[in-house]
């Protein structure tokens, strides 16, 4: 097991802290690390795609789980996969797609580990259809503070606390996943352009049930009557007969392309108001008003940004803040107010996404709830951003919504209880399971989780 001292940040590259990084290769090594961690505790970390400080532990231990990366069994008949927590969704796709199976839920990047996906209870474009990631977990193995490995199944308190529990209930070592059957690695995509936010909400409300995957890119810099104009892309896995002739020979091929790595030093403000306004204008205008049945490859539909490794560097040294919130159905007015405020303030976000969530998930700290989720990416150096996001938090909380903890790097601790009603249960279960605080992260310290 390798050990080193490293400075770590989330994907947003803000608030770096230093920790001892252990890289366990076996469950026993992971258990020894947890048992041997000092007073500042330990936390599991996967591929570091969480935007905030959820996988950092200042002055303590961080378990880099990416060496635990074995896919243990695959049942090609039923789509049940048993794999270690450090296996990435990218790897799962590489292995499973040729067998006709696909990850049950995939976020906007496939470079996340299975452990991280459960810990953050990630959601994807199919949330209205399939729920969050942990709904597809049949069983998981959890390393507790005493070094014991427990098998946890859905329906138990420990499972609900672990799904979305940000690694604070223990280290997820392996999981059994139910995958989704696909016949090709192509997507049949319908695209619609909406003129404003009301148009967008109406179209998502009426049409989402017809598609497995749906999300809308939204231009938050558009003002006036165009406020909230967007491009909806919705899709289904394409059946084999619909594929172009050249693709029919290898319908399940998975060969994502890749650009060169983003440079280490990018001037701050590259994605400022002018450039983002230009990009957004181009994006909006180049999208078709209405197009049905366009064939896209899986990576282009789900993970367009993954083709640029380290794309988070494009925000420059100051890093970025990802703000994602959800407000319930019936709170459309709050959503409109927030979108108007963002647009009036000219916040340059080049990949803001609006998604209509389905039923909420059982995880106590799971983010999704039925309603509208908006995610935006902003340069941390934007003047006055801290206070502005604080004011948005208040609006979100007032509307009964919440912000996503896996992406958070700046929430006020006192807002948390209003947003996550089951927080008290989470805290008491943690106090019972882990009285000495063997599992801690910068996020748990910041928000007193």
């Amino acid at each position, binding site marked *: 097991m390798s050990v080193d*001292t490293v*400075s770590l940040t989330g994907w*947003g590259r*803000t*608030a*770096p*802290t*230093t*920790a001892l990084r252990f890289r366990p290769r076996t469950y026993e090594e992971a258990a020894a690390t947890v048992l041997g961690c000092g007073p*500042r505790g330990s936390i599991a970390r996967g591929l570091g795609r969480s935007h*905030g*400080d959820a996988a950092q*532990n*200042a*002055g*303590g231990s961080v378990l880099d789980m990416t060496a635990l990366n074995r896919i243990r069994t695959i049942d090609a008949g039923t789509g049940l996969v048993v794999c270690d927590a450090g296996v990435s969704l990218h790897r799962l796709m590489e292995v499973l797609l040729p067998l006709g199976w696909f990850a049950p839920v995939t976020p906007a990047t496939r470079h996340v580990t299975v452990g991280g996906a459960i810990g953050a209870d990630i959601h994807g474009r199919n949330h209205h259809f399939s729920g969050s990631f942990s709904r597809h977990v049949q069983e998981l193995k959890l390393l507790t503070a005493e070094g014991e490995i427990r098998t946890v199944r859905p329906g138990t308190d420990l499972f609900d606390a672990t799904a979305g529990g940000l690694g604070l209930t223990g280290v997820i070592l392996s999981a059994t996943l139910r995958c989704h059957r696909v016949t090709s690695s192509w997507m049949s995509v319908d695209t619609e352009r909406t003129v404003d936010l009301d148009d967008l909400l109406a179209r998502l409300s009426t049409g989402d049930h017809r598609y497995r995957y749906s999300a809308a890119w939204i231009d938050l810099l558009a003002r006036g009557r165009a406020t909230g104009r967007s491009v909806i892309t919705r899709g289904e896995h394409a059946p084999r007969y619909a594929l172009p002739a050249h693709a029919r020979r290898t319908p399940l091929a998975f060969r994502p392309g890749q650009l060169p790595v983003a440079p280490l030093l990018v001037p701050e403000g590259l994605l400022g108001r002018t450039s983002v306004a230009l990009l957004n204008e181009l994006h909006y205008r180049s999208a078709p008003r209405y197009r049905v049945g366009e064939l896209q490859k899986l990576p282009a539909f789900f993970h367009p940004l993954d083709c640029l490794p380290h794309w988070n560097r494009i925000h420059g040294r*100051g*890093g970025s*803040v990802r703000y994602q919130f959800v407000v319930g159905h019936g709170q459309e007015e709050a959503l409109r107010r927030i979108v108007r405020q963002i647009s009036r303030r000219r916040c340059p976000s080049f990949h803001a996404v609006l998604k209509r969530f389905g039923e909420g998930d059982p995880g106590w700290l799971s983010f999704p709830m039925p309603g509208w989720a908006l995610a935006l990416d902003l340069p*941390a*150096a934007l003047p006055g*951003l*801290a206070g502005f996001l604080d004011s948005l938090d208040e609006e979100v909380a007032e509307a009964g919504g919440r912000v996503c903890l896996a992406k958070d*790097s*700046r*929430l*006020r601790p006192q807002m948390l209880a209003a947003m996550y009603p089951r927080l008290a249960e989470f805290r008491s279960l943690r106090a019972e399971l882990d009285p000495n605080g063997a599992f801690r992260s*910068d*996020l748990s*310290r*910041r928000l007193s989780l």
Partner: protein
Amino acid sequence: MKDAFGAPQSLLVLGGTSRIALATARRLIARRTRTVWLAGRPSPGLESAAAELRTRGADVRTVDFDALDSESHETALGKIFTEGDIDMVLLAFGIAGDQERDEEEPLSAVRVARTNYTGAVSAGLVCAGALQAQGHGSLVVLSSAAGERVRRADFIYGSSKAGLDAFTQGLGDALYGTGVHVMVVRPGAVRPKTAARPATPRLTVARFAAAPLEASPLTTTPDAVAAAIVTGLRRRSETVWVPGSLRVVMSALRHAPRPLFRRLPV
């Protein structure tokens, strides 16, 4: 923990009656700071500062701390760190001394040096060690533009700040990569009260050199220094000049030959 914008949740101020420190604390309390430790010699001033910060909603505690008593620093400051993480330490103590008297009474000059330099070295090292153990935090040290090029008019104070400045830079390099961020803040002369800035349309070295400090556009206020510190925390800056134009002016003065510098009325 600090958030994405570098706003700390807990703050330790060494030199709890410093106006710059209190202005900074007020700004940080308006952001995220909930716990403030004010360390200083017990005095009514310290207590009233604590009371004032309490009215702003922070949990404020005072600690006995004497910069001149270096032996006590380890225990006095160590105790604070055992009670919880400190996200930011603001080393703000220092005395200006009285140049004329100090030149005649070497012992009072030594007192300036011991407070501003020796005291800061021991307190800085104790805090740096504790911050390093917790793997995160900022150590913000109030240096002075007077330390950049020491003037005839206040070379005793200036030399002590020059020493502190050099020490802080070295400490920052030593702590690079440990998760601890060290920031040196170099304010110009701080005006006694928050007065309106004189209307001076152009900044020139000659103007700076000719104008008395009170009227110079290169003087600053505690509030402006506090604002610059908050921005520096967000940017994780290593050096902060207040006002920013001092960087250029001092760079020019720093390179002025001594025979010329002696003649400048600065």
